[in-house]
C-alpha cells in the first residue's frame, strides 16, 4: 500500500538520521545541525501559513526562545535541558498574549506586525543591559552536554522531530480542515461552525512554541548570543525561502527545500561570503513568479500530466468576493 510505503521510507530516513554521528565528522554534523534548525523553522512557518497567515516573525520567536533559555540558565541557575522546555513555554505564552491583539489582522497587516514585533524584541534585549547583557550579549560558562558534537546533533534532531510530529498532526487531524477552510474562505468557515480566532490562536501558539524551542536549542549549543545573532533576519528569510522552494502547505515540501537550500548555502558560504543571501533573494523571486507551488507542486503537475488523469482545471485562487447586489 502507498501509505505503508511512506511509513517505511520515513522510518528508514529517521534511522539514518539518528545514526549520522556514527559516520560523520564534526564539520558535517555542524552543517546538519544548521540544516535541521532551518528545516524546523521552515516547517513551523508553513504550519501557520496553512491558515493563510504569513508570519515574518520567525526570528523574533527564535530570538525570544534563545534569550529565555540562556537567561534562565545564567540568571536563574536552571538546568540547560529544562531551560529549552522553559523557553518554548515562554515563546508560546508570549504568542498567546500577542495573539489576542494581532490575530484580528489579516494579510499584509499581520505580516508587517510580526516583523515589527521581532524588531521590538531585539531592541528590548539590546537595551536591558543588566539583565540581557545589552548589545554584547551573554555567554554561558559551558555549552550543553560539554559541547559533545554527537549529543548536540541529537538534541537538534530531537527538536526537529517534535516539529515534524506537530506538523504531521496538523495534517492528519481536524486542524487541517479548519486551517484550510480559514485560508480558502473565512465566510464559509464561519458558517460551518469554525471558530476562526480559536484555530488561528492554536496555530500561532504552537508554531511560536516550536520556534522558541529551536532558538533555545541553538543558544545552548553555541553557548552565547547577542541581539543581532538571536534576532538575525536570516532566521525569518531562509526558512521562508526553503518552504517556498520545496512547496508550501505540506510538511514534506519545506523539509525538501531546507535540505536543498541548506546544503547549497553552506557550499556558497565557502565560495562567496554573503553570496548565499543573494541566492536566497533570487530563489524567492523565481519561485514566486514561476512555481508558486514549489518543487513538489511541479512534481505533482508532471505526474498528473504523465498520467493524463484529471482535468487541467486551474486551481482557482480564492478571492473571497463578498456578496452584494449584482
Amino acid at each position: 500500500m502507498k501509505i505503508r510505503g511512506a511509513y517505511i521510507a520515513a522510518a528508514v530516513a529517521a534511522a539514518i538520521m539518528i545514526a549520522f554521528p556514527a559516520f560523520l565528522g564534526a564539520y558535517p554534523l555542524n552543517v546538519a545541525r544548521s540544516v535541521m534548525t532551518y528545516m524546523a523553522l521552515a516547517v513551523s512557518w508553513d504550519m501557520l501559513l496553512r491558515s493563510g497567515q504569513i508570519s515574518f516573525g520567525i526570528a523574533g520567536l527564535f530570538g525570544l526562545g534563545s534569550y529565555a533559555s540562556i537567561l534562565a540558565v545564567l540568571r536563574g541557575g536552571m538546568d540547560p535541558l529544562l531551560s529549552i522546555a522553559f523557553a518554548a513555554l515562554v515563546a508560546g505564552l508570549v504568542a498567546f498574549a500577542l495573539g489576542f491583539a494581532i490575530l484580528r489582522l489579516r494579510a499584509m497587516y499581520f505580516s508587517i506586525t510580526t516583523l515589527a514585533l521581532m524588531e521590538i524584541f531585539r531592541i528590548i534585549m539590546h537595551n536591558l543591559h543588566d539583565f540581557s547583557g545589552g548589545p554584547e550579549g551573554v555567554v554561558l560558562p559551558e555549552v550543553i552536554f560539554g559541547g559533545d558534537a554527537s549529543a548536540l546533533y541529537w538534541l537538534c534532531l530531537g527538536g526537529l522531530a517534535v516539529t515534524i510530529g506537530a506538523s504531521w498532526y496538523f495534517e492528519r487531524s481536524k486542524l487541517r480542515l479548519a486551517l484550510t477552510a480559514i485560508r480558502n474562505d473565512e465566510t464559509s468557515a464561519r458558517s460551518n461552525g469554525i471558530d476562526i480566532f480559536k484555530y488561528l490562536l492554536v496555530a500561532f501558539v504552537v508554531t511560536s512554541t516550536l520556534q522558541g524551542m529551536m532558538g533555545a536549542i541553538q543558544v545552548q549549543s553555541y553557548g552565547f548570543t547577542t541581539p543581532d545573532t538571536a534576532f538575525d533576519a536570516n532566521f525569518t528569510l531562509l526558512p521562508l525561502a526553503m518552504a517556498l522552494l520545496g512547496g508550501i502547505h505540506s510538511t514534506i515540501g519545506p523539509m525538501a527545500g531546507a535540505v536543498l537550500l541548506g546544503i547549497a548555502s553552506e557550499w556558497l558560504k565557502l565560495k562567496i561570503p554573503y553570496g548565499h543571501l543573494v541566492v536566497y533573494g533570487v530563489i524567492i523571486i523565481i519561485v514566486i513568479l514561476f512555481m508558486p507551488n514549489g518543487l513538489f507542486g511541479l512534481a505533482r503537475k508532471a505526474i498528473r500530466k504523465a498520467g493524463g488523469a484529471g482535468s487541467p482545471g486551474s486551481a482557482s485562487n480564492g478571492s473571497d468576493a463578498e456578496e452584494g447586489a449584482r
Partner: protein
Amino acid sequence: MSKLSTTGLTKAFSGLVAVNDVSFAMEEGEILGIIGPNGAGKTTFIHLVSGILMPSSGRIEFKGRDVTYLPAHERSRLGIARTYQLIHPLENLKVLENVMVGAVFSRGKSLREARLSAEGICDELGLGGLDRDTAQLSILEIKKMEIARALANEPEVLFLDEVMAGLNSDETKQMIETVRRIAGERRMAVGVVEHVMGVIRELTQRVIVLEAGELIAEGPYEKVSKDPRVIEAYLGGAA
C-alpha cells in the same frame, strides 16, 4: 414556539438601509419563500440571521433564545445553516472534505464519523465523485455540495440563497424535488430565495416580500402575487 423570528431587524450600510424594520417568524417544517426585486435586501437579511453580518438594530430569536449578536460559528452550531448566492467552495479541500467541515465543526464529530455522515448526505443529494477537487465540479454539483455542507451542520433552520440560479430547467426540477425531500425528512424550516416565480409557487407554502429593505407583503404565493404593492414593486424595479 417559532424556530426563528426577528423583530424590527434593521441593517444600515453607511446611509443605505438594506434591511429595514423586518419582523417575521418561521415554523418547523415550513418552506418559506423570500422574494423581492434585485437589491431588495434578501441576501443581507440572510447574512443577518446567520450571523455573517451584525444588525444595526432589532432582535433575532432562535427557538426563543436571543441570538442577535451571537457569532456565526455559534449560530451554525445551534442549528442555523445557509448556502451562499455567490458560491463559496473550499478549493483546497476535496468535495467530501468540504461537506465534512460542517459535520466536524458544527456537530463536533470525529473525522471518521463526519466522513460517514458526509457520504450519506452526498448520496442522498445524488452527488458523486467525492474525491474530486471542487474546480472539477459543474455548477449543479457545486450547488449540491454547498447544500450538502449546510446539511452536514444538521440544521433546524436552513436558508438557500438562489440555489437554482444558473441551472437549466431539468436541473431546476431536480433541485426542487431535492429541497422538498430534504426539508420534509428533517422537519426543517427552510427559507428559499429565488427569482424564478415558478419555483417559489411550486416549493413554498408561504412567502415574504422585501422591497428596499422593507417587508411589504406576506402570505401564500397565490395571494401575495396579486397584491398591488408587490406588483408595483416588481414593475417599479423593472422600469
